[in-house]
């Protein structure tokens, strides 16, 4: 499948980070880009829309990204959640993977990284 079939969710409390990611991902012609400003909203929107891939920040209000990933994986063990955080310490990395995250990328995130992840997601959907 191509990128036009991929549904993406961006969960980040930073309006700046969300806007930059949404603008770039939308320009690639994906099916839909959902956004969530905190961990709680991310879990709710995941359950309602089941996006193919989620980019999830860690430090967020209401529910952290790690807590949100745990709930999303409980709901859908096949969920693909990429942690995208400025705090890529070994502890955070371990917590994220143990919570069920598929990968971890350190901010600032390059457009190339995002595009590769989305293309891989599309391939996996075949």
């Amino acid at each position, binding site marked *: 499948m191509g990128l036009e079939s991929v549904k993406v969710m961006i969960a980040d409390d*930073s*309006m700046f980070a969300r806007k930059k990611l949404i603008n770039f991902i939308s320009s690639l012609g994906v099916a839909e880009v959902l956004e969530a400003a905190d961990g709680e909203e991310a879990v709710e929107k995941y359950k309602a829309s089941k996006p193919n891939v989620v980019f999830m920040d860690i430090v967020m209000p209401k529910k952290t990204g790690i807590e949100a990933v745990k709930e999303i994986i409980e709901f859908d063990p096949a969920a693909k959640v990429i942690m995208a955080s*400025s*705090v890529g310490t070994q502890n955070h990395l371990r917590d994220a993977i143990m919570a069920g995250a598929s990968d971890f990328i*350190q901010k600032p995130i390059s457009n190339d990284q995002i595009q590769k992840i989305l293309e891989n997601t599309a391939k996996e959907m075949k």
Partner: protein
Amino acid sequence: MFAQFFGSFLLHKGLVTAADLTQAFEEKKNTRMRLGVLAINAGLMTSEQVEHVNVTQQSVDKRFGDLCVELGYLTDSDVERLLSEQPTDYLLLGQTLVNSGVMSNADFESAIIEYKNENSLSNDDISGNQSDKLSKLISGFYHFDTAANARIYTEYTTLLFKDIIRFIGDDFTPLGSSIIHELEAPHIVKQAVTGAYNSITCVAADTAEYMAFAERFAKEEFTEVDDFVDATVGEFMNVNNGLFTVNESNEHGIELQLDPQEIHTDDKIVFENPAFLIPVSFSFGEVNFVISNG
């Protein structure tokens, strides 16, 4: 980054003005290094010898390098080596200031010798961005050695300047720091770093400078300070502080967390511990950075 601190040195010595530096940082992208400045920097020629070759060149149709060799100032291999070296940023800055007439070759010669001596820097040290020399330069410039947690202040500030160059631009001059106990500004973004130790970090500026800083980071134009502009400056701080926590974890085994950023508009922040105010003069104006550790 040596260029910015060399610029600050020249400003402090009264050899250039802030406006001269702003213009030079803009123009240095198009500056081509000349052999004279390269030879002075390498300690192979004095400014008088360079001037002598310049004057001689006016009456003889020969290249500068050939004349240097003829007059016995340089060997062929000196010329070849100097011209083949990648020009460093501080040399480009110096060359730009010489080209525009702000400094003479003699001014450059005395300044670069004094700058290197004051900071115990060799040509090799500043030909790359050697981290240990850079940290030493920054620690000395800001007198961090007087602080209890000198390593943390030095490494945080070194990373901050690397990130400023990476995300905002290299057209800035670091100004001398001061110790503060409170910070009042039209716009302040504050982020606490917690864990093995606690730090408070801030970015503060007046409205025009705050917007200009955000514009550089977002690569967008803004007409007023709104939530998005605050989020943009906040994200710069978050990325910088995030990279700092990663370095602390990887290099020192120190685990830290970041609190969400706080936006303060027309407000005053009082610090529990003394804080270092680090003012930076950009071509668009001054932005202050603060770190308080304890």
